């Protein structure tokens, strides 16, 4: 992560928002000054060392620091961890994601873990125990707690109404189970001795060790160099694996899959039957959130959204299931250049997500989902099965950024051409003479509206509701075939959501799909900024490379002056650039070529920078609003007002307060949306 000025500013603002001014100031200084000691920090900030130490302690507790202590020295030098500071803005998303896929209890645990920073399991359990005991004590006197009954529905919708007061975690055993689940999902990992070393420090020490080993063995030359590289990668992997020690221990205790199924989000809330089966975790372990894995899950969700935008919701749902299965053991979005290039195979999951079979997907689909939705109907003879089912063993070699036209260009040319060509152009007849092939499909041609699915009332408010179709009798295809249809659509898509990597085996090539997603994000910014014609011109340049200004109007079918104006507009916006190529020494403008081109990578990095700055601006606007409404806000913080603003505040104050809250929501929402973009551009 490149820490530019806006990033630094953003991180400081986020730390300020969540942990207060003191840590924020120290954090900002650490970002700008680099590695510093307490005394240096005190000097930089004109604060007392005592203040600095307090601030550092808070930062350290919340995983926002790296530090380094030289052997034999008392003094530590500290460094900021901007990744984690940035991740603070993702808190809402991560919690919502955990709530949706693991249930309210897991969300509660994660929230408390985030709140307290790195925490010993012991302490977390004690805190929960205290809360549970209190609840038990008071529950006796009160009427029966039906809040708990409502809790089982928690994952289905807003847990707003269910979480009031009612305990989500009802026993320490349940807590243990939840932690186990999160550890297994790698969303929580273990803090170890080197967690707070910067990657540079770790690399250095590992290098040192490897060198020492090497000199002892005395290997030299090119082979030795290679070996050293491998040893270093090996060493680094070992360090990285330390944070997964808890997970490994759990796995040794029996297959996780046996104990529970990954997809049954419902089980977590009434985890009674699981209590016995989960091993009790070592209470001395210190755990914290693992953002890397959270990002993998967030990436899955973004890709599902992408598929929804491009295809249909049902197909996107299938995609989501596929992704979840596929990335179960994918620890991070991007492979590490040093650690993950080594060729040793012991954990090849890092490099290759493997594949998922059709049956696996089928097993994990919700039974309530109607797979007949979201796909058009066509007669058998209208479909080329050889083309649809084509297996692609290897990921695409070309960068997807070039242009879709070319990506699609390669297809099975040599396969059964006759079957394709037989049904050539005559489309008027296509939809009529279908009776011959399949009598039952008669009405289901493109004219048929038989596919109407009646709504059924039982739609529950999950993210996407799929109706169990009333038209079940009408369904001609069996479920596996329907599933295949969705998978094949994903595989055939221009975006390349899925690769059919073997008979009934599916995988996702994340690099190209994320590249195409980036391009889509860029395109929507271009289209929203410079209109559809602007987008057209950029995509022409992307497809054709550098293009003479004179050649453009003809390709784009645009008038010259309009086109030139558009190009200038886009040049100003940084989407395109121009190169002047003089034809002779005189460099007469009239005779020179003006070659337009677009540099996608540059545009993307510019967009990233704009995103950071937009986020900073949103937070600064919020700060300005707070300043403007400070008298109101101070009032609401008063102890006699808090919690019953409605009753105690003057009407005008109250209205101002509620308007402020609305603005605050809007601004944070915007920051989070921009973060969606940043994730795509930087992290996925």
């Amino acid at each position: 992560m490149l820490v530019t000025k806006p990033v630094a500013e953003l991180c400081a603002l986020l730390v300020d928002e969540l942990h207060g001014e003191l840590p924020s100031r120290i954090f900002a200084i650490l970002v700008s000054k680099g590695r510093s000691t307490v005394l240096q920090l005190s000097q930089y900030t004109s604060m007392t060392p005592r203040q600095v130490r307090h601030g550092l302690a808070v930062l350290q507790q919340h995983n926002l620091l790296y530090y380094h202590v030289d052997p034999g020295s008392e003094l530590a030098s500290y460094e900021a961890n901007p990744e984690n500071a940035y991740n603070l803005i993702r808190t809402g998303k991560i919690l919502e994601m955990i709530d949706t896929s693991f249930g309210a209890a897991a969300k509660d645990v994660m929230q408390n873990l985030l709140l307290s920073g790195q925490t010993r399991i012991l302490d977390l359990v004690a805190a929960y125990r205290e809360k549970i005991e209190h609840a038990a004590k008071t529950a006796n006197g009160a009427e029966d707690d039906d809040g708990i009954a409502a809790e089982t529905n928690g994952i289905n919708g807003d847990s707003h109404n269910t979480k009031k007061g009612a305990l989500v975690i009802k026993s320490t055993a349940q807590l243990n189970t939840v932690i186990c689940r999160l550890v297994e999902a790698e969303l929580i990992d273990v803090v170890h001795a080197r967690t707070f070393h910067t990657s540079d420090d770790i690399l250095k020490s590992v290098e040192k060790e490897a060198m020492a080993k090497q000199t002892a063995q005395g290997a030299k030359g090119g082979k030795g160099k290679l070996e050293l590289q491998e040893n270093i990668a090996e060493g680094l992997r070992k360090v990285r694996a330390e944070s997964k020690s808890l997970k490994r221990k759990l796995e040794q205790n029996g297959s996780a899959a046996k104990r529970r199924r990954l997809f049954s989000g419902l089980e977590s809330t009434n985890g009674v039957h699981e209590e016995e089966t989960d091993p009790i975790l070592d209470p001395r372990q210190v755990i914290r959130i693992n953002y890397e894995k959270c990002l993998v899950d967030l990436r899955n969700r973004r890709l599902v959204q992408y598929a929804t935008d491009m295809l249909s919701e049902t197909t996107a749902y299938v995609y989501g299931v596929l992704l979840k299965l596929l990335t179960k053991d994918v620890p991070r979005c991007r492979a590490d250049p040093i650690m993950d290039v080594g060729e040793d195979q012991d954990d090849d999951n890092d490099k290759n997500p493997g594949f998922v079979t059709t049956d696996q997907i089928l097993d994990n689909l919700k039974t309530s989902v109607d797979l007949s939705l979201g796909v058009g109907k066509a007669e058998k003879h209208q479909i080329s099965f050889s083309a649809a089912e084509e297996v692609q063993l290897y990921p695409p070699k070309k960068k997807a950024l070039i242009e879709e036209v070319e990506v699609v260009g390669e297809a099975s040319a040599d396969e059964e051409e006759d079957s394709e060509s037989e049904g050539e152009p005559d489309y008027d007849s296509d939809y009529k003479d279908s009776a011959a092939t399949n009598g039952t499909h008669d009405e289901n041609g493109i004219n048929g509206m038989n596919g109407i699915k009646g709504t059924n009332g039982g739609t529950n408010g999950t993210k996407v509701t799929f109706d169990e179709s009333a038209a079940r009798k009408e369904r001609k295809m069996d479920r596996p075939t329907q599933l295949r249809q969705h998978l094949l659509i994903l595989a055939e898509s221009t975006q390349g959501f899925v690769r059919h990597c073997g008979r009934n085996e599916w995988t996702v090539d994340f690099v190209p799909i994320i590249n195409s997603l980036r391009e889509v994000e860029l395109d929507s910014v271009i289209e929203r900024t410079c209109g559809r014609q602007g987008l057209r011109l950029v995509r022409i340049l992307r497809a054709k490379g550098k293009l003479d200004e004179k050649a453009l109007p003809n390709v784009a079918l645009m008038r010259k002056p309009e086109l030139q104006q558009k190009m200038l507009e886009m040049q100003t916006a940084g989407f395109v650039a121009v190169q002047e190529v003089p034809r002779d020494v005189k460099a007469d403008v009239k005779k020179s070529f003006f070659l337009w081109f677009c540099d996608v990578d540059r545009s993307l990095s510019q967009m990233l920078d704009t995103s950071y700055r937009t986020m900073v601006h949103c937070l600064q606007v919020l700060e300005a609003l707070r300043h403007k409404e400070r008298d109101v806000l101070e009032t609401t913080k008063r102890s006699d007002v808090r919690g019953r603003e409605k009753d105690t505040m003057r009407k005008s104050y109250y209205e101002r307060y509620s308007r402020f809250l609305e603005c605050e929501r809007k601004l944070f929402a915007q920051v989070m949306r921009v973060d969606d973009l940043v994730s795509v551009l930087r992290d996925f």
Partner: protein
Amino acid sequence: MANPAKLQILKDALYEEIRQHGSATRLFAQSDILDLNIIPNNDLELLMNVVQGLTDDKLLIGTTNHHAGLSWRWRSREEAKKYTSLPNDDAVMVYAIIDEAGADGIWNRTIKNRLNMHEAVVKSTIKFLEAKGYIASMKNVEHPNKKMYIKATLRPSDRATGGPWFTEGELDTAFIAELEGIVFEYIKTKSAYRGSQPTGTAGPTKTPKRGAVTAGETTTLARGTKRSATEMSNDDAAPAVGTTRTTPSTTTTTSTKTRAIFLPMPAGYKHYPTVAEMAKFIHETGITNNTTLGEADIQQLVDVLTYDGLIEPVRVGRRRGYRVARATKQDTVPFHKRQKEREAGVGLNLSLVPGAEPLSNGLTEAPCGRCPVFELCEEGGPVSPSNCVYFLQWLDLEDVPQALAPNVGFPP
């Protein structure tokens, strides 16, 4: 030998024979003419006389060609008559050079330079020729500011006019836009399945469907059977196409539970429309009454639609077709119908261009994304987030705060 009558007969015979053997652009070398067996005994001198005579009559045009040496082309008698009817050499020379330029036309400055004539002479000659109806002025799209001339009988070449997309030297963007709409509509209906979906499944991100929900028995394009009143009244305002084929919307929505939606076709679908099919379709509709659009022209149009991100090429087997992008997000009401509605004042908030609403993201929705002073904006500067008026507007705080209704905001 020099019998004028005989010479005339030979001339006529040779001229007719030459015309039999090729078009006005074919070059005939000396040997070619001899091989026609008109000139007795291959008498070269006679040949020379005959050819000279024809050239004088402007029926043959002599040219020198690098490969074949001296050679000739024929010219029609009417054309030749025009030459011979011209009063003076100046007029002949000017007319000849314009004739030579053919369908591309020629710039008047070029005429002047090549003939080395005085400008006034060229001007008056051109004026004379124009008045006689022999030549006409024209515009060349490549040089819009140059005054060009062309033989009145010729139509300017595609290169000069810019092809079918130009009208009087100007790119006819209205025509292009209209055709784009038609081609897009065609691809949309041919490459996606028009089905229906329970309304309950509308995702949270979806913009609410505006306008009437059409329950769709009318799936493929029904050809001009029924028209709504609004369409009728606007017939003259819009070019023919839109009105000839419209989908009558059954406003009596029988079931409110479903809505029409386009769905992607199953993988391996073999009937995504090709350019050839589109060209055929366009030809059959007769929209382009006086311009003929070849497949190459349609391909150009389709490419533009592809660059616009509205459609995408698909190759199934050897067949290269096109399908609509983001099928489920497309409007099920045909674009032309939307245009009609717009003219009638309905649905003015809908997009002016065919295709689905462009995607948006956090940047495009924030005031900063397209902010004109973004580069200047900085805390402490004259333009800063804390005094940003755009943000106030965005947050609905721009006006007197008190006047604001408290419940503008978020869905529950």
